């Protein structure tokens, strides 16, 4: 046996053990993976990890407004807090660990320079209502970002304040509604393809429109004939994702825009998939009237476990006058934040949130844009599309691609290739967890049976793509060879096995309660 320089064997002694024969640990730990109780289940709630001076006065002036009863908030010393949250963190998958191929989510590398820039006191320690003369740099940054967004999309205006993609959709539809109303032509319907993100119909309904679905062609695009038949004088807008949720470019997009405009309606584009075309195609050249841009997708601001996002909306000249407040304008050398519109310009549809949007995300996105430049962003789109097509090419022999021809930034497979194996898309995805990868987006878009939507992004190396494809091919072979238990029981190696979602919904426990604590521990 070979030894290293300190005389230890470089390979462990091989002991023949079956998976079932691994002895359980005595204290419940599992190597680096620590069991971690809720903060509410610790002994003694009186600790604090913050040293504060004794208050100099009492609060007797507030009389019976003062809270007497305990609040119910446990405290942790700093080392305890650090351990608690670091232990929790180790139960999460992350882009920094491995490929995170969630289609439609654009899980790309998050540069740390962006984090550093967002934390400069000149951005982070600035109040939204300081005098404008004291925040000229912040307004300049917003103006710069707006310039990049308008140039990249070929659009005339941008509403910066929406706080996420869905909030951006809301912004776009409110502008469209305001534009129709300004002409005295209130309309009732919004057309949405069957493959759309759930937020599209939800947003249209939220702002009071009836939602009507447009059929899809056999090659995964909007059915123009169905669209033409459903357009009419009461249609306010169409909401189309392009590239669409099947990962395909809408070939007839210009014709779609012309039909929509001829009917007096507006073309809302869901920009969730902008990463596929950034720097190469400008949505303004396609006839788009409004499009939200998820800064947390295309422009790399971190997803943070589900937010915060940021969803500025670019607008065509027709919709620009209806943009919400606030917005930045440059007058001479000075930047002005227009928070109210008066007089002639009262067409603004209102306000979407208290302040000026997600400044912290603006800084990160601009940092990303400046780093890549016009040349780099074009390369981003090309590499994102190349990576997706590479995966599609490598896996297509074994898994069934949903559509023929090149895809854009994501490769879509259906579950026909699993027929007869007894294994579902969900089972396959859970087995990927055991192999160290995050599953792809599953069962979406709804138009493809058992959909598996894989979006690698441009920040994956060829080596990592090959590792991913090799593993998926091995899994696919195992599925076809009848190794059913590997899939049905998966995951085996994750911090937890499959979770009972039915129980969670049937008996909602949405917070810790002292009386349930022992009961829980017993389960």
């Amino acid at each position, binding site marked *: 046996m070979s030894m290293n320089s300190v005389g230890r064997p470089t390979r462990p002694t091989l002991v023949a053990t079956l998976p079932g024969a691994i002895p359980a640990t005595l204290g419940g730990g599992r190597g680096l993976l620590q069991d971690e109780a809720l903060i509410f289940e610790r002994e003694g709630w009186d600790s604090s990890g913050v040293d504060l001076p004794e208050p100099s006065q009492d609060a007797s002036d507030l009389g019976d407004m003062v809270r007497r009863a305990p609040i119910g908030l446990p405290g942790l010393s700093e080392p305890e807090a650090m351990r608690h949250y670091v232990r929790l963190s180790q139960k999460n998958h992350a882009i920094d660990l491995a490929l995170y191929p969630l289609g439609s989510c654009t899980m790309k590398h998050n540069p740390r320079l962006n984090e550093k820039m967002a934390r400069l006191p000149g951005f982070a320690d600035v109040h939204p*209502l*300081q005098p404008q003369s004291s925040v000229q740099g912040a307004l300049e940054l917003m103006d710069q970002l707006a310039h990049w967004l308008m140039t990249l999309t070929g659009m005339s205006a941008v509403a910066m304040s929406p706080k996420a993609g869905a909030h951006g959709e809301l912004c776009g539809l409110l502008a469209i509604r305001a534009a129709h109303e300004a002409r005295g032509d209130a309309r009732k319907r919004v057309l949405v393809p069957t493959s759309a993100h759930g937020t599209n119909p939800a947003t249209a309904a939220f702002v009071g429109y009836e939602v009507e679905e447009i059929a899809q062609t056999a090659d995964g695009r909007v059915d123009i004939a169905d669209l033409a038949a459903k357009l009419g004088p009461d249609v306010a807008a169409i909401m189309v994702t392009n590239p669409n949720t099947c990962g395909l470019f809408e070939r007839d997009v210009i014709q779609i825009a012309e039909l929509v405009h001829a009917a007096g309606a507006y073309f809302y584009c869901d920009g969730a998939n902008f990463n596929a075309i950034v720097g190469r195609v400008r949505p303004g050249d396609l006839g788009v009237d409004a499009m939200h841009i998820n800064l947390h997708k295309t422009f790399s601001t*971190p997803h943070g476990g589900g937010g915060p996002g940021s969803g500025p909306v670019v607008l065509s000249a027709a919709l620009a006058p209806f943009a919400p407040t606030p917005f930045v304008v440059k007058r001479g050398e000075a930047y002005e934040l227009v928070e109210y519109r008066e007089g002639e310009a009262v067409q603004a549809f209102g306000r979407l949130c208290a302040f000026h949007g997600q400044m912290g995300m603006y800084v990160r996105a601009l*940092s990303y844009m400046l780093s890549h430049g016009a040349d*780099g962003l074009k390369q981003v789109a090309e590499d994102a599309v190349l990576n997706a097509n590479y995966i599609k090419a490598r896996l297509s022999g074994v898994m069934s691609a949903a559509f023929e021809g090149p895809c854009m930034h994501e490769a879509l497979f259906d579950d026909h290739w699993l027929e007869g194996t007894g294994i579902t898309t969900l089972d396959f995805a859970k087995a990927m967890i055991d192999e160290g990868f995050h599953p792809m987006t599953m069962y979406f878009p709804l138009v493809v049976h058992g959909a598996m939507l894989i979006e690698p992004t441009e920040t994956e190396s060829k080596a990592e793509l090959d590792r991913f494809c090799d593993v998926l091919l091995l899994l696919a072979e195992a599925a076809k060879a009848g190794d059913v238990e590997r899939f049905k029981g998966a995951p085996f190696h994750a911090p937890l096995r499959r979770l009972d979602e039915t129980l969670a919904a049937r008996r909602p426990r949405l917070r810790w309660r002292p009386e349930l604590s022992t009961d829980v521990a017993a389960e």
Partner: protein
Amino acid sequence: MRYLPLSPSDRSAMLGVIGAATIDDLFVDVPVAARRDQPVDLPFHQGELEVERALSAMAGHNRTAGQGPFFCGAGAYRHHVPATVDHIIQRSEFLTSYTPYQPEIAQGTLQYLFEFQTQVAALTGMDVANASMYDGSTATAEAVMMAARVTRRGKAVLSGGLHPHYARTAETLAKVAGVQVQRLDAAIDGEAAVLEAIDDDTACVVVQTPNLFGTVTDVTAIAAAAQAKGVLLIVVVTEVVSLGLLKSPGEMGADIVVAEGQSIGNALNFGGPYVGLFAAREKYVRQMPGRLCGETVDADGRRGFVLTLSTREQHIRRDKATSNICTNSGLCALAFTIHMSLLGEVGLRKLAMINHAKARDLRDGLMGVPGVEILTERFFNEIAIRVPTNAAALVETLAGQGILAGVPVSRLSPKGGMDDVLLLCATETTTSSDIAALVAALKGAF
């Protein structure tokens, strides 16, 4: 290009596997008229050093809150955040993960969301809280929509003490949903006026405490009177630190509580990202917007957490969803949870007491300035004063002297007839010399 791992030889090898001659072959579906062979008209890529220089220059053109005496509040508050908070939220596993749709490999996120929901419910005195909203203002708008759904009525009454931007946000959303909004005139201490505006079609009354002018209100009687008419009481809190000292809205009878959580764990960030808190009575849980994290067990019977009751949400219900919201404010909620865990009950109560004491010091200082009238009687850490001049001009003048002297009401409500009213806030970050500098500057200003 430092963020792009593919080399030219990788690219050509991959095109070979795909069976494409050039990258353009993969973009064939793009209409010819829209294809661009050349990069758009923007600068080319830059190194880290150059980007850092460009952005630092912009940052340098802002006056920071920490640079001198600072008294701005009105919906965004400057508090000290422990270093641990920012360290933990930058861990890759929290920063670079997605929405926890695969719970087996997202228990870190899910467990902190469960802890967050529990902390928010405790703090607001409510039964349940969601996994967060974009911010306090959008949470307020969503609460109004929810009240209309619950009561099947079509009118919301907003108090004159509600932050004008919150009111405008709610109005914008309510208008298109066919919910009528009645905004009452601004009043320093008049939350109870909402009761007089209630009619048969009123779904909810919205009051804020502490309100825009800093006034703290016991809403117990408002809750009882509203509920007697089948009207829901929505309580808005823009400064959550106040809940360490004041009776919770739940204790006073609120049906829905929405709050801006920025004060705990999150920097000012020029207005965002922040974190909206949303809590309600248990019976309304299925009408709530946003993500909910719930407890369950795994296949081996071990406790775990999942996103639940998602039949309310857009990705399942599409046009029948309770809201179109998809994301929450995950990382800001994590910052909130860590900071709150570090404070604990002991720390939060003390922090709130210190804030209140600082505001009393501020009030006492301002009382010594001739011409200044203190308008707020019962306050937490923020007060409104009347000055014998235009408040916005005064703030500009003092900014020139290095003092950020608060927020003029006219900034929020230009036609509100309160051009001489100024809102000032003090927190644990305010020092007695800050207050002395403000008082001295005001004495010389008019």
